[in-house]
């Protein structure tokens, strides 16, 4: 997920388990979509325990980003086109 690291992102949550991150998205964002592991978001394949919740907040996309040594972060990235693409997915 190299390209995520070069994005202008905000860390919403850190030091949480993947399941806690999923619960946070579902509780915090009225709009979210469930996707499967490997789903492509920002040209990278998302890692996670299915179903993976992706939050939507206006033009912002909130998604989990997992690294072996650092655990799971929830990242918030502004991208109008990606938010629209995700919004078009079936709930």
């Amino acid at each position, binding site marked *: *997920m*190299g390209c995520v690291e070069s994005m202008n992102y905000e860390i919403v949550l850190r030091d949480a*388990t*993947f*399941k806690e991150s999923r619960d946070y998205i579902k509780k915090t964002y009225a709009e979210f979509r469930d996707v*499967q*592991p*490997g789903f492509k978001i920002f040209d990278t*394949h998302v*890692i*996670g*325990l*299915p179903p993976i919740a992706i939050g939507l907040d206006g033009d912002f996309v909130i998604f989990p980003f*997992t*690294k*072996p*040594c*650092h*655990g*799971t972060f929830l990242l918030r990235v502004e991208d109008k086109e990606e938010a629209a693409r995700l919004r078009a997915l079936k709930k």
Partner: protein
Amino acid sequence: MDESVTGETTTQPATALLVLGCPQVPVQTSIALYLINRLKKAGIVPIVAGNKAANTLLVVADPDRHYLGEVMDLDRAVVQITEKKRDFDRCFVFIHNDAGVTYAGTMSAISKAKVYTIIYGEHYEDLQKQIDFPCTTIAAKAVHNPLPLKKALDEVAPWAA
């Protein structure tokens, strides 16, 4: 079974992907080399996928590649499996933290491989409880001493399955 240009059928050797976790727990590198050796002896081709640190620990420990074969970046392995460019017969995921469980769940979802979770470290029992996807679990409280985990691995003998 594949057919060669001469019309003979050829059998591809079985493959096993070893998904390494963060190498901060010492037993990972030792057990990975042990497992690679057992797999090779059983005629199974091992492929290692990890981050740079985890892969480098193995590559430096085996400079003449007596044990190691292909070593690849973990993110690249995920891309290749997800895009159906490559898959494996067995997949061993090393787990000592929540990220390891997350990677194992991912492999269980994207790959057709038979998944084995190798769980170790101080919190191995808590991590075991988080496994809710189909896999065979091999677990022991092992941090510095690899022998409890080796024993658990030998009992399952996944190279013989």
